[in-house]
């Protein structure tokens, strides 16, 4: 569905993206992960033909965005990190305006989409009085009109409260499962990407440092925080098992192919009281550091 071929962008003397190549098949939810300034929005801009690549090309359905932008963007919906609207107009008028740049739509189709995003009660209010969550829903509604098969979502959960994030996640999954929509989603929130994406790419300072499945990224090892009593006895049990290693802070690393449940059984048999076994998620920083291969690697901006 989307193919990026050695896409690079330099703004003035500042390189923003370096030779990014990606292939996103139809029907997939693909996550673009990275900190602010990693090159995610630049990539989106180039896919939409809003940013001119310095070198390389972007293709949607094998149509070059740079050469045939209008044809390539047929059936594409997009929302940005901070969705912008004509605040002095109603949500409904905004939808009418934006959709008029694609084709004329019947009111029934607009209404259906407004219902889908749950904005029917406030759609005739001025956008000026919308909350951030309502603006995101309106942004999603305009992206879904008229019925795209590719959705580009730049930081869709940005600024939303936990309930809003949950709703947005649910909507994205529904669109993918029920309507077969291909979704390219960018985020700096690991949990978001982890919960919805089939595959991901990680960008760091304009370079892609990983591409693959989420499970490939989280690595061969799993980490847990263990709280047991007496701790000395637990540590002795752990020391007898070569697949386990213990780090300061009672952090336990389990080698790939082994199950934490085996340790739990062994601890119970050794009459150690287990108070907590808590799986630990890596932060984006830790993943970056792991990916660039050195704890002393420079932190992303």
């Amino acid at each position: 569905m989307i193919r990026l071929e050695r896409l690079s962008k330099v703004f003035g003397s500042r390189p923003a993206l370096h030779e990014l190549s990606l292939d996103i098949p139809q029907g997939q939810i693909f996550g673009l992960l990275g900190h602010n300034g990693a090159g995610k929005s630049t990539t989106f801009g180039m896919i939409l033909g809003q940013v001119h690549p310095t070198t390389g090309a972007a293709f949607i359905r094998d149509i070059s965005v740079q050469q045939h932008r209008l044809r390539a963007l047929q059936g594409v919906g997009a929302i940005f990190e901070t969705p912008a609207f004509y605040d002095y107009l109603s949500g409904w008028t905004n939808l009418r305006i934006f959709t008029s740049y694609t084709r004329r739509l019947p009111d029934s189709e607009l209404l259906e989409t407004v219902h889908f995003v749950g904005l029917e009660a406030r759609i005739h209010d001025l956008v000026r009085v919308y909350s951030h969550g309502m603006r995101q829903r309106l942004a999603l509604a305009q992206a879904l009109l008229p019925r795209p098969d590719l959705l580009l979502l730049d930081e869709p959960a940005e600024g939303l409260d936990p309930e809003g994030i949950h709703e947005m996640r649910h909507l994205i999954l529904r669109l993918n499962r029920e309507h077969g929509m291909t979704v390219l989603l960018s985020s700096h929130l690991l949990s978001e990407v982890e919960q919805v994406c089939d595959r991901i790419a990680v960008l760091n300072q304009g370079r892609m440092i990983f591409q693959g499945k989420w499970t490939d990224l989280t690595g061969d090892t799993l980490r847990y925080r263990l709280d047991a009593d007496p701790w000395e006895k637990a540590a002795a049990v752990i020391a007898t098992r070569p697949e386990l290693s213990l780090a300061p802070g009672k952090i336990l690393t389990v080698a790939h192919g082994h199950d934490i449940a085996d340790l739990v059984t062994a601890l119970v048999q050794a009459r150690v009281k287990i108070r907590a076994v808590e799986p630990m998620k890596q932060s984006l920083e830790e993943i970056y550091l792991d990916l660039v291969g050195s704890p002393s690697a420079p932190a992303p901006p």
Partner: protein
Amino acid sequence: MPLFLTQLRFELLKMFARKRTYIGFGAFLLMEVLMLYLCNLSKPKAHLRHLIEQNGYGFDDYFSGVTLAMLILLWTTTLMGSLYLALVSGDLMAKEVEEGTMRMLLCRPISRIRVTLLKYLSAVIYTFSLIGFIGVTALLAGLIDRGYGGLIFIVPEEGIFAVVEPARGLCLYLLGMPLLALSMTTISSIGFLFSCCNMKPAAASIVTLSVIFLDFIFRGIPSFESLHPYFITSHLSAWMHIYEAYPPWWRMIEDYSYLLGLDLTCLILGSAIFLQRDLK
């Protein structure tokens, strides 16, 4: 084509739903009231009486609503009109880019050329609306204050001295409106050009005004008289010649060709600049 018209309708809706679009309308209305008041004060009135009567015409016959409306147009549109047209046209592209709505819009399968064309047309329509509004309200205000009568129109720097009978005066006044709007479209075109560049909306308006004011200042310097044909403001006054007893048609065609050429250059150049820009 029908979709283009729908899009143009929405462009106009966006423009006319903004409060700042009406600043110009409101300001001119206030100014017209102020001008009427000042023209009716004894000293200015005496001056106008002297001006008309020294040329052998009756003050009461020719200091009519139409003459008053013409005076309002003459004294206000070039500078004040430039200000409000620059404000709105400077906003056209730059405001949408600044607020992020341009990115939302360009997610759609619409070409940038089409966007610039829509914006430019809406600027032209705004210019005609504003000038039409000023013209009609000035006329109404003049008619209410002074009633129907002949038209006397004197612009020494353009060599214009026109005395016209009431019916013809009114027709010429109404004919002058679209010509004035056509002249003022050049200011909107310059505003559009700068609005397409990578600058803030306020900067685009200020640069537009600077261009017009500088042109106006340079044109007024006696040493630059030989350069008059190259100044924009030399051609902006082309509309006034319609009131002459024998309008210099060839000169007017030349002036409007210059202005239309400039408008087209601004449109093409602005579009080319906008095409090259990265929107992020």
